[in-house]
């Protein structure tokens, strides 16, 4: 599935036209940082009558167990995020080799690629929880939402899947996925909500 990225067939990333690199709102040291996650691979995996075979496959291919509760199992290159009974979101940090992986997994699961259907962000910073509080009906306190916890909910009337990754140098960090078509409305809410803390935006050039 390698693309010949000629001038006319250049891909347009889901945050294009909404997120721009720079600082929004207060100009002091940013309290929250967003990195757009571009070029990740996503797919829905739905196990058949039994998920044990799928789990053997994910262990073998990715070294990851299937989370059995709302959690994310993450490696440096891949992740499996619980998305419902017998249903997971598979993510790959790079799309290279992703379609081959999907073919391998399709033996043991219904696999539907969603790489282009999601807009993804990493949010971090000292005030990240204060921003999430403006959208999340899920408690993201340290104790209630430890590293690896995942949730399917909605922020600002927009369906959201998010999870907490390892803390970064600026504190707690979360990865957030929304439907691509709603990226503009989501960004409008996020920018308005984060502005008071100083909001630094980085566009992933991947």
């Amino acid at each position: 599935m390698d693309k010949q990225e000629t001038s006319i067939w250049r891909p347009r990333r889901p945050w294009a036209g909404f997120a721009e690199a720079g600082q929004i709102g207060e100009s002091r040291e940013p309290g929250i940082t967003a990195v757009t996650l571009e070029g990740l691979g996503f797919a829905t995996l739905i196990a058949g009558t039994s998920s044990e075979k799928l789990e053997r496959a994910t262990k073998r291919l990715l070294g990851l167990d299937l989370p059995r509760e709302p959690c994310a199992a993450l490696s440096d290159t891949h992740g499996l995020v619980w998305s419902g009974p017998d249903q997971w979101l598979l993510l790959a940090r790079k799309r290279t080799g992703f379609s081959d992986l999907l073919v391998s997994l399709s033996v043991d699961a219904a696999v539907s690629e969603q790489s282009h259907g999601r807009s993804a962000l990493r949010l971090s910073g000292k005030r990240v929880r204060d921003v999430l509080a403006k959208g999340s009906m899920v408690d993201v306190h340290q104790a209630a939402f430890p590293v690896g916890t995942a949730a399917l909910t909605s922020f600002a009337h927009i369906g959201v899947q998010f999870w907490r990754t390892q803390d970064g140098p600026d504190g707690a960090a979360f990865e957030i996925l929304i439907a691509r078509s709603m990226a503009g409305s989501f960004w409008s809410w996020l920018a308005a909500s984060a502005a008071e803390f100083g909001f630094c935006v980085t566009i992933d050039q991947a």
Partner: protein
Amino acid sequence: MSKQPLRLPNGGLVDRARTLSFRFDGKSYDGHAGDTLASALLANGVGLMGRSFKYHRPRGLLSAGPEEPNALVELRAGARREPNTRATMVELFQNLEATSQNRWPSLRFDVLSVNGLAGPALVAGFYYKTFMWPAAFWEKLYEPLIRRAAGLGRAAEFEDPDHYEKAFAFCDVLVIGAGPAGLSAALTAGRSGARVIICDEDFQLGGRLLAERREIDGRAAADWLATTLAELASLSEVRIMPRTSVYGLYDHGIYGAVERVSDHVAVPPPHQPRQRGWRIYAKRAVLAAGALERPIVFAGNDLPGVMLAGAVRAYVNRFAVLPGRKAVIFTSGDSGWATVRDLAEVGAHVAAVVDSRSEIKPEFKSLASRVGARVFAGSVVEATRGGRALRGITVRDASGKRTALACDILAVSNGWNPTLHLTSHQNGKPVWDEEIQAFVPGVLPPGLSVAGSAAGRFTLAEALQDGARLGREAASEAGFAMAAAQPAPTTDAEASELKPIWRVKGRKGKAFVDLQNDVTDKDVELAAREGFRSVEHLKRYTTLGMATDQGKTSNLSGLALMAEQTGKAICDTGTTTFRPPYTPVAIGALAGHHRGKDFRPVRLTPTHDWSREQGAVFLETGQWLRAQYYPKFTDKDWLSTVNREVLATRGGVGICDVSTLGKIDLQGTDAAEFLERVYINAWKTLPIGKARYGLMLREDGFVMDDGTTSRLGENHFLMTTTTINATKVMQHLEFCHQVLWPHLDVRMVSVSEQWAQVAVAGPRSREVLRGIVDAKHDISNEAFPYLAAREISVGGGIPARLFRISFSGELAYELAVPADYGQAMMRALMAAGQAFGITPYGLDAMSVMRIEKGHVIGSELNGQTTVRDLGLAKMMSSKKDFIGRLMAKREALVQSDRPTLVGFKPIDKGKSLSGGAHFVGIRRANKLENDEGYVTSVAYSPNLQHWIGLGFLKNGPARIGERIRAVDLVRNSEVEVEICSPVFFDHEGTRLHG
């Protein structure tokens, strides 16, 4: 600049070093940081703050808190103007601008105050009785007049320029109110490590401690307050939220609160919201909302200068303002005597104390003699004197002897009502406590406990004890281990006996029960006489307890008076129901970010920006924005644009984004079986690589949705749904699988967002596609016939899906690529189609073409039509069962005269048609009995060069060639039309297969 004549030289919690200037009714004044608008006006000697609702009587401050019924002002100006703002709750800021309400031409001289003279006519129920006849006068004359005369403030006439937010908070223990009880609760709970949120509506924390001269642990209460606040601030899991009103209690420990983030500044600082609406999820909560002091009903009790005794203490002690120079105290309990002491402390002259009780405690007697106040035991204040301000009162003693006294402030105390509103929000009924003569919380909502005054335990010692105990309990119940309890702090002595009186009968003159609604004791008597005796009826008949204060100072007096009228006890008279919100909440705080274009999320297709570049006009269809048409400068008008797009497509090739259609990926060994059960037609026979049109019914036999579904593999299908029903169909399929047939091996997920999809339609469409589809894929008519559906690649290896399906009736395809390539696909198609005059078309042109072909959409699949009505009965398989099969056979759904799909066209080809018109026979009257059906879709066909339409007509298919009228009574038009086949164009479908 004024000099604040009534400001005390020292004491209080205002910052005299920070002077703030403000304007009231256009006049400039000075106040200090720490003032409210009310205290600053009072400091400047402004006692008259508004006119009353009905009689336009002069009114001043009654209270110093959220219960204020009188001092309502319009705050700010222009787009930020905010009516009915309680001056007692407005934190003073530099350049604050406020205007009094409900007066004309000015506050001091108000023309409508003659309403007061006509008083006897304006009793309860007056409007209902007087303005009944003639009926037409109500709307045209009476209502506008009444609205002008009796009203509160004016809403802003412009859009609110400020931003509002919503936010969610979670805690183990929520403490509502930061007085002594709340602070003790927060501290005890916070020390355990529990997550505590403590909210207070005030900008300064401390509650009554700020207003009283009290001692805790042998030191000034202010010391304890400072220490406690410092320790709370040091606890990392404690969140202190001043300026935050918890206004509602909801199911499962959810509380509504509004934080006034920027109300204390003229304009919100950059990036700050004006207000923030909070939804707080609390495992446990402690209500420590304190209590509200009660007034007494007596003649002239509404004159500016008649004030609650606790409010007088608040102005003196907290705001360092002397509300008057010569005071009289009128009390029925011990609490009023604290005002004597505090006024004397700051050098005010207390002329007299009128205590309705005949026994006066020795310590009060000695206090009175120390300050030189006359004591009237067993006496009442019978009347007041004064015009726009209090000048004096008449005291009547037990023997009936009257004494006139001069005074400019009358401090009234009649005991306190626990602020128990939140305990009632889940239908909890307050219960009457005979000892304190007040309602106290009854059965409490789960997870809530009540501390201190809010529970009817009014002394400071009780507040501190309750707070510590309940804070501890709450944290412990939320799972936190507690250290050994420490004894609660000690306090100075406090007398709190009470024998309330509800009204003083006697003199002429209005005695007000509800100051905000101008309800007098006479109105309550009238309501009782006329049979409105239930408290709910009393409220609605007299308006007692309505409007912004919701009767915080009047409900109990009203009940007591009604009890007196009906000879019942207060507890048997009942209470009205308290509902959220406790105090008014701006709609903005509930809407948060979601207004204007952010009212709800907007969905944009992957080709949106490209369409915008092409100058598209967009249409909202559900949440989606879709290109409606692409005007060019050379187009005369909208219709010429649409005609151009249609003719270009039928004559060459056009492209139209169809990404919004729902796309559901279905996999599993039973996927085909599953489709058999949800669709009316056959699916197991569909070959791999082919698409088929499908219709699904609701359980009740009506059509739910349609679309094409393609077989991508033996066990792999891709279903499409209409844009509008995408979510509904997904839910339906999930329901069918999870509930009806869980044993079927079928797995489904929406892939709508993954793909950008475009319709490429017109006789040259294949040639255009040939230019972008990778050469290895044969898309010739033979290799890729009508209804072929295959995975291909474009642009040199980009995976894509190509479907040969047609909504326009032309040779047409739908091409899908991963969404990142959506925009590129449009550019590539435009480049490849340039030689063929490729034209982007929008929803309107699509609609014209589908009407020309008689294809149905949501207008026809409107939830009231059956497969038979649509003329598609032959699609229903008789060889299998499917959802809706039996119910579709119901007698009424198969009657031959049911309106059935037909086409129609005007006899006079120059006439236009209108959607929504009804079919009525020629020379028949336009009556319901003659209604024979209705029009669902109309369009101007540039190919036929006249208007065409689709509709449902009784026994329609049998009436082709018949003439009938399309009557539109809404738009007042009627057109004679000829019934015809719904297919207007290319009947044989030859273009489709071209």
